[in-house]
């Protein structure tokens, strides 16, 4: 016991940052413009193979929300070579697992499989890059599946619907305000032509990024990639038609009540620079700021709102900066006991005002840096998480040298940088504040 306390005190005084073991990463570009990154991990004889397309829900034409995600579902229906419904079955019969996901800026497909099956999955993925075969009879059933997915994720749950309303309010003009899965009313009328139009415009080698992580040799990966992907012709990519976001001049407020809300909560968000749009180190500074505010129970928000004042059950902040066009900085909290949402909002406002007036300390910043660097080391344990991290970064436009220099940029952030970024982003008239409340049911009101 005693020994422990003194060791720890000594460790604290030094505040050393941990040794950093760099992951082994290499890259190449095929003649047709397809980028590739190889992340070596020789611990197990398996591989994660991913193809990322630079197209997401933010690229959908008006009136067609959800088409990027719906297309992702339809990509499993088969190709000229793969019989309907057989894609995932072939992967499974080879001991592999596969799936896909769609986001605002990208759509990605992946398989996890024994390393000697890499050529097989590359062949299948390359095949469906240009040769998908969507039959009319799959269209309706799969659209119903997507609507059930929307029910599960969003419509059955007032928290999910509230989040959707908040995002729609946060963005005045940009498609980041649209839910990735789409608005239900528009999903219901999506058809085969909509999907194929998206597919033909965006699914091409010069709009794709290949990520291979695992027990592989980069030269072998390159040879396989040339064989399977290198033969695909590039296409003329459409010019990006994304909307711009006008200045935010008026604070917006939302209130939503639902009898199924179990735990009321408050949400407060601001648009922020992203790792892509920011030219300096604001993104790194905002990421450190979010750790200073809520990276654990000793940080400002949990400490003040849950422990010191006992106003909240939980409270936190996050910075979401991995996005092509802009990021988001947000706060959230759930009131405890008799605390009202306006009281909680008052406490949050006070904390933000205090932050802007009195700043953060050197010690807070040092802790946040150390925790960010340790997280990067722990993240290396997961092959698929590493693959995702690199895939997302490259797809939105962050280059490998920027990933490599991330630690230097992080270490260079000063207290002044953090405060400059905070002042830049936490501007009241640019904020959206949402209350999610429990509606009294009729029985409750009568009684």
């Amino acid at each position, binding site marked *: 016991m005693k020994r422990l306390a003194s060791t720890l005190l000594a460790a604290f005084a030094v505040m050393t940052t941990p040794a950093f073991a760099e992951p082994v990463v290499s890259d190449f570009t095929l003649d047709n413009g397809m980028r590739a990154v190889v992340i070596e991990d020789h611990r197990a004889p398996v591989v994660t193979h991913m193809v990322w397309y630079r197209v997401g829900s933010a690229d959908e034409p008006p009136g067609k929300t959800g088409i990027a995600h719906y297309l992702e579902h339809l990509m499993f229906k088969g190709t000229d070579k793969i019989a309907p419904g057989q894609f995932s079955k072939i992967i499974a*019969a080879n*001991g592999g697992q596969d799936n896909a996901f769609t986001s605002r800026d990208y759509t990605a497909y992946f398989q996890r*499989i*024994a390393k000697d099956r890499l050529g097989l999955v590359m062949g299948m993925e390359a095949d469906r890059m240009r040769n998908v075969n969507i039959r009319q009879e799959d269209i309706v059933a799969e659209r*119903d599946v997507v609507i*059930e997915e929307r*029910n599960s994720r969003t419509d059955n749950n007032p928290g999910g619907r509230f989040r959707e309303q908040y995002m729609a309010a946060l963005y005045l003009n940009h498609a980041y305000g649209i839910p990735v899965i789409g608005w239900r009313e528009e999903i219901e009328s999506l058809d085969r032509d909509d999907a194929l139009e998206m597919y033909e415009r965006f699914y091409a080698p010069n709009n794709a990024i290949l990520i291979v992580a695992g027990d592989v040799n980069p030269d072998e990966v390159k040879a396989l990639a040339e064989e399977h992907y290198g033969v695909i012709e590039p296409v003329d990519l459409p010019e990006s038609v994304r909307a711009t976001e006008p200045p935010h001049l008026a604070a917006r407020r939302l209130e939503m009540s639902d009898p199924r809300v179990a735990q009321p909560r408050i949400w407060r968000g601001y648009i922020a620079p992203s790792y892509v749009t920011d030219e300096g180190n604001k993104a790194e500074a905002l990421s450190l700021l979010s750790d200073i505010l809520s990276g654990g129970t*000793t940080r400002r928000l949990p400490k003040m709102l849950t422990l010191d004042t006992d106003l909240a059950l939980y409270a936190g902040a996050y910075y979401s900066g991995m996005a092509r066009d802009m990021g988001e900085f947000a706060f959230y909290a759930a009131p405890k006991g008799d605390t009202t949402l306006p009281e909680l909002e008052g406490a949050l406002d006070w904390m933000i005002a205090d932050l802007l007036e009195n700043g953060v300390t050197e010690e807070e910043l040092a802790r946040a840096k150390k925790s960010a660097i*340790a997280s990067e080391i722990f993240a290396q344990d997961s092959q698929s998480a590493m693959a995702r991290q690199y895939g997302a970064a490259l797809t939105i436009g962050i280059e490998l040298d920027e990933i490599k220099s991330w630690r230097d940029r992080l270490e260079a952030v000063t207290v002044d940088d953090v405060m400059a970024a905070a002042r830049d982003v936490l501007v009241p008239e640019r904020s959206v504040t949402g209350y999610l409340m429990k509606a009294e049911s009729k029985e409750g009101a009568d009684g």
Partner: protein
Amino acid sequence: MRTLALALAASLAIFPAIAQEDSSRIKEVTSPGGIVAWFVEEPSIPIVTVQVEFDGGARLDEKGKEGAVNLASGLIEEGAGDMDNQEFAAKLDDLSSSIGFSAGRDGFSISVSSLSENIDETMDLLHVALTETLFTDEAIERVREQVLSNLRSQENDAQAQASRHWYAEVFGDSSYAVPVTGTTESVKALTRDDLLEAWGRMVAKARMKIGVVGDIDAETLAALLDETFGDLPEGEALDLTPVSVRETGGLVVIEEDVPQSAVVLGHRGILRDDPDYIPAYVMNYVLGGGGLTSRLTDEVREKNGLAYSVYSYLYPLDRAGLYMGGVATANARVAKSLELIQQEWARMATGGLTQEELEAAKTYLTGSFALRFDSNAKITSFLVGAQSANLPIDYIDTRNGLVEAVTLEDIKRVAERLLKPDDLFVVVVGKPEGMESADSLMEGIDG
């Protein structure tokens, strides 16, 4: 299109060449004081992960004090020795380490991750947390409020509601009938003495299973095991007498105003040490275990677009085996989905598998086994799970052989023995159309 599938099938013959994580890397380390851990040395990333499982968990809760084990487990990070919860959290933070915990139906589990350079101090903190937990009134109330908030959320979550009712009806009097979290009523009534008593039952050397993976050597680990766990109370072995499981089918409809109904269904299954467990596991992979490739997914999702997610699984608890399934689907389509599920249950019970399905299941299950060992965290969790299930240390070498040995006759025998479509007990939460509670599923759908 058939040709590709056939070519792939032909290539499967060479498949078992895949090099698994082999048992020679798994060491059983016994400390001078007699503490046993299963261990894999993995120096490639400078981290160590430790998982400790105390068999028992929420089933050690006494009648009327349900939720005591869960609440007590939440106190592990709320202060210990001379540290309050802020000091404890700050010390973990200084070390960049984390200690997570969770209470389950049959076990209380602790996960530690640490940079290898800090593993001594981290385990020192775990030792203090296990042996000198504070149980201050303030911490108890804080964790109690969090648990009550979770319970409130679950009361409004259709899936959680369906699950709660299913277990209550199927287990009647045993402790498995109540969720791990307890009920709002039982949690409110828990006293500090109840929690101390629960803690005394939960933490026992006789029921401790330890797995360690990472950048540490066996000798250092052995010493750490004694320092961390040496002075824990010995405790008693668990009562493994089987508890009774509802034997009759039925349908319970609980009305909730949601667009999508949540369905939990199931009946008796088998225990993990049953000789039929592996054949049953292979059979279930085809019925509803294999994600996008299962019969349930084919019928309910792919052909009819009725749901995003439909599945079945074996759930071997320590004192009862269950065979479970579930689906979430729009209120208008619940009856149809359930008819299809029951139909598939019956088709498997009477017909078993085709040779082709059995082969595909085997190649998936043997080939994908390696995917369970591609991160330190996953290997750690396997090491603990295998010990809790009383599997031999070389199971990793023998397991694929057990799967390969399963025959069509085994599947037929096991399917007849286990799958009882008329005994399915089904709970639906939502507003399913054309359904009402009844003594059997079919009766409830027709009525």
